[in-house]
């Protein structure tokens, strides 16, 4: 058992608080029509930030679903920069530099789980240290890719942490309509790997669980499935109205268990945090966000950027389409 140090807990809280206020800023920008549809992070901060802090950004990988980026500060400031670029609709928003071991967002649910297994397998074959952590949700645990990838990971014994963020809802579908299994972690038994359910609102518990899974993986003891049990405090996305289906009293109950309030209270009690630190963290996070957002909006875009990076060399047809895009007088011929 490796509990996070005081410094680590403080760093995790800084990232959680930053993610929360930046998510609110982003929500408002979406309502102003300045960014596209996005998935708010509210309620998921502890599970994601603590996971990132239990990993080593120098050698471990994170394959996100789509809700995670604001809480992945530990993996590099470029994660926020590119996430904002992504949200303003710039193609380069999907590109992270080679030093940042985070994959692009994955909109197609669970499809990144087989990639995580292949990536960990490839790292093992090339004697590269490190583990691959793949995020997905309770809804994704119903996808075939989850089962196929879990099965292969078990067979190969590769260093993967399957990190299921169980926030109780897949848009409007509640967990009991997603699975009749007692827990999602229980499904690990069918893959021949250990599975644990963790309180996803408890940053220290999350850190501990991921740290243990990572230690096992690095020791060649294979993959682990971790189910982070938490509650989606916000909407599924900016296009969703959860008041249509989330029971108000259930949400109220969940709010009393807000992961930020919990860690904040814990650190305040121990004299490691105070209101001043909280306010300063919020202000710094927003300043950082605004600066990155201004840069994202000012990032130039080539008139034929839409055609780049499809294939290494343009086909005869793509070359014509590129010429057409670059010719203001161009007509289909």
């Amino acid at each position, binding site marked *: 058992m490796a509990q996070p140090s005081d410094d680590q807990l403080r760093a995790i809280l800084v990232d959680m608080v930053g993610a929360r206020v930046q998510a609110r800023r982003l929500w408002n920008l979406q309502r102003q029509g300045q960014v596209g549809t996005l998935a708010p992070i509210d309620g998921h901060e502890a599970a994601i930030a603590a996971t990132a802090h239990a990993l080593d950004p120098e050698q471990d990988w994170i394959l996100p679903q789509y809700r995670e980026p604001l809480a992945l500060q530990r993996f590099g400031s470029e994660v926020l920069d590119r996430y904002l670029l992504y949200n303003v609709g710039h*193609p*380069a928003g*999907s*590109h*992270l*530099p*080679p030093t940042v071991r985070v*994959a*692009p967002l994955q909109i*197609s649910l669970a*499809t990144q*789980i*087989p*990639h*995580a*297994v*292949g*990536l*960990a*397998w*490839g*790292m093992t*074959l*090339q004697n*590269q240290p490190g583990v*691959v952590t793949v995020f997905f949700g309770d809804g994704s645990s119903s996808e*075939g*890719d989850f089962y*196929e*990838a879990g*099965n*292969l990971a078990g*067979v190969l014994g590769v260093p993967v942490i399957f990190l299921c963020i169980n926030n109780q809802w897949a848009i409007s579908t509640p967990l009991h309509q997603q699975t009749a299994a007692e827990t999602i972690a229980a499904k690990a038994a069918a893959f021949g790997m250990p599975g644990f359910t963790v309180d996803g609102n408890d940053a220290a518990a999350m850190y501990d669980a991921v740290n243990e899974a990572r230690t096992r993986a690095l020791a060649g003891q294979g993959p682990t499935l971790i189910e982070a049990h938490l509650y989606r405090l916000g909407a599924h996305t900016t296009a969703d109205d959860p008041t249509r289906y989330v029971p108000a009293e259930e949400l109220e109950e969940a709010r009393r268990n807000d992961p930020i309030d919990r860690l904040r209270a814990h650190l305040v009690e121990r004299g490691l945090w105070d209101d001043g630190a909280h306010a300063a963290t919020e202000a710094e996070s927003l300043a950082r966000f605004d600066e990155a957002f201004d840069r994202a909006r000012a990032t130039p875009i080539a008139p034929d950027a839409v055609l*780049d*990076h*499809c*294939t*290494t060399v343009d*086909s*005869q*047809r*793509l070359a014509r389409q590129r010429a057409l895009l670059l010719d203001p007088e161009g007509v289909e011929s």
Partner: protein
Amino acid sequence: MSDTTELTMLQAVNEALHLEMARDDRVVVLGQDVARNGGVFRATEGLFEKFGEDRVVDTPLSEGVIVGAAVGLAMSGLVPVAEIQFLGFSYQAMHQVAGQVARLRYRSQGRFEPAITIRSPFGGGVRTPELHSDSLEGQLANVPGLKVVMPATASDAKGLLSSSIRDPDPVLFLEPLRGYRGIRGDVPDGEHLVPLGEARMARRGDDLVIIAWSYLVEMACRVSDALADEGLSVAVLDLRCLAPLDLAAIAAAVDHCGRVVVVEEASQTGGFAGEVVATIVEECFWSLEAPVVRVSGLDVPYPVGMVEDAFVPDEARITAAVRRTLETA
């Protein structure tokens, strides 16, 4: 000139795999029954013994994760060559093929190199059970980012497969079941590379051109040879790759001959022959001396043995289409 050896298409595929694995230790082969069994057709025979269990891997029976894991292997810097045992079963991996493999470079904006080759046998004429014979090339060619490579000769099978494995873009390398042992020919020894995206004139001719790919090139050549005895000069253009498509070669052949028959084994509606015809209309409308004719599979699921000959284009159907097109004033 380098020496050649007569090989079946299957032996040519196997030789390319051996050469590429020996040349580049990043190449790994994965799929069902590809290791100890050497593949159900023996396409991967000898690889396991030669390159070991780390590089030649039998996977669980799970098409989606064979392709999905190949994506991750490529992200790690390896060069996966995945086998889908029969193309009809790739429906169970299509979300990974079309949604992930094809757009890995695009959605990472060039960070990840999808140097992935997916080999799969396809096509009819060998009395297989259901879903073993489907021709899905048109569906795959409709996915931006994928290369679709379909050799028609043993020599091309080797040269195009080596090029596909070395290509930094993802390639669907489709091998005709009937051609595995039914097509043989002289194959250059040692390294042999055929560039992707260049069509090949399989028969020269002046009166009409048959445009085909994969096994139907062989059939079109037989038709051309038979009609040559009657003094008819029928060219055969082997596309080799549906994506990238050699527009210039199509235009040159059609401009020269003025009459065209396009043959394909897949069902007709929405099939790739339609794309070829559209290309001809755009590029060569004023060179045409007769309506373009398609000879395709039928618009039904690939059928069972007693009726499959009615589905797959044969020499009689191709010959009839050629005669009709030549007779059009």
